[in-house]
């Protein structure tokens, strides 16, 4: 029986997030929820380390995040679980931070959270979407790249074309590591917008 359960469990690791979520939301399959918890709890916990100083608070915020996931009804499908967990965990961390500070968030703190939130490319999924739904658009990439600012284009080409690491790009171009990340993120965002424009032009 143990062997059977272990093999059943092993097979769940091959399921996609979407499959696991659907099985949980529609059929309340606990093993599926557990697999999602196993997949992401360490990331949520570490992410909480950005905002909460006490280990106990991070742990509570992690549990609260997954408790929220548990209650999401099947009528509210989750497109990207990591992104959803990130959003929920961030809100929980902010609430906890506010409660612990016993007052409204100061402008500096607000900036801290905004700054951290802004680091993520908003429409990051677009490139994936293009690849999945409109693979023919990949031929537009060279044109789109040419329309980027020089620094952003350099970073994107070295990172994606030469498959260099942040550090290697930084060393090659002489930019600060943070700046490389920033150029990459902003460049990707801009690239998405350009691709959208090119697509609409084509259609």
């Amino acid at each position: 029986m143990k062997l059977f359960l272990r093999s059943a469990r092993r097979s769940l690791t091959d399921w996609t997030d979407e499959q696991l979520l659907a099985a949980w939301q529609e059929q309340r399959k606990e093993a599926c929820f557990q697999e999602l918890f196993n997949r992401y709890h360490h990331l949520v916990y570490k992410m909480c380390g950005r905002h909460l100083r006490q280990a106990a608070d991070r742990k509570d915020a992690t549990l609260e995040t997954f408790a929220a996931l548990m209650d999401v009804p099947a009528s509210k499908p989750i497109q990207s679980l990591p992104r959803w967990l990130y959003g929920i965990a961030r809100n929980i961390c902010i609430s906890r931070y506010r409660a612990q500070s016993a007052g409204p968030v100061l402008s500096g703190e607000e900036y801290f959270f905004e700054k951290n939130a802004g680091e993520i490319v908003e429409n990051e999924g677009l490139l994936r979407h293009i690849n999945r739904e409109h693979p023919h658009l990949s031929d537009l990439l060279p044109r789109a790249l040419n329309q980027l600012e020089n620094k952003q284009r350099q970073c994107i080409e070295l990172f994606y074309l030469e498959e260099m690491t942040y550090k290697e790009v930084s060393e090659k171009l002489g930019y600060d590591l943070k700046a490389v990340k920033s150029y990459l993120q902003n460049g990707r965002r801009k690239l998405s917008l350009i691709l959208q424009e090119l697509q609409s032009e084509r259609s």
Partner: protein
Amino acid sequence: MKSFFKERPCLSERELQRYVSHELSPRQAHGVEAHLLDCPLCAAAVEGFTMHPFSAEDEAALKELEIEEMPPRRQRAFGRIWLNRAAAVLLILAGTYAFWQYREATRHQAIFAAYYDPLQPDYLNLRGAAAANALSGKPELQAALKLYKDGDYEGSIVFLERHLNDYPQDIQASLLLASALLGEWQPERAIHLLHQLEETDVAAADLYWLLALAHIQNNELGAAERVLNQVKFQDSRAERAAQLEMELNP
């Protein structure tokens, strides 16, 4: 530009640890960084992990999380309760079945023990001159009777067999041997011997009574019942036979 569209799962705990510790190869590190640009959760986790190096407290908290009782696990606990109940019921059923099996397996033994009385051969009832005449010159038979009377069936079998080698027509000694064989729990030999005696003019009541008991000892209750029906017992034996039949066919 292939890696632009590469999709990969989120970072495992070990991978994240190795990335932050710069233990990954440049190729692996690039794969992780491409994912970090795409995944807000992993990017934030890496940042959180880098900003505040983990303490032993964090390690303990993560370990606790791994065994944390999330509500689904509580539901699983309910499931476990049902599983435990089912296991208990199964255990009881298995126990009952085992007891029934044991009872069935030992039933014939219990019946045999309740109905077996060592046959009292005529030899033991002889007195005076009759006894002297019957036993004279038969030391094996004398020794066998003594041992049989004392309940040493094993010893009596040895001397009875020796006696029967010299006096194969001694039906009383043969019946005594069959009874001793049952006393020694050798039903197959007893059955074989008793079937040989069917051809003689041995008392049918004694013969079939012993044969029925031999079949019972051999766990052949149906055969024992059939044997009992072959003969009409008299007096106290008839009463015992009726009781035994009822016992065999409850």
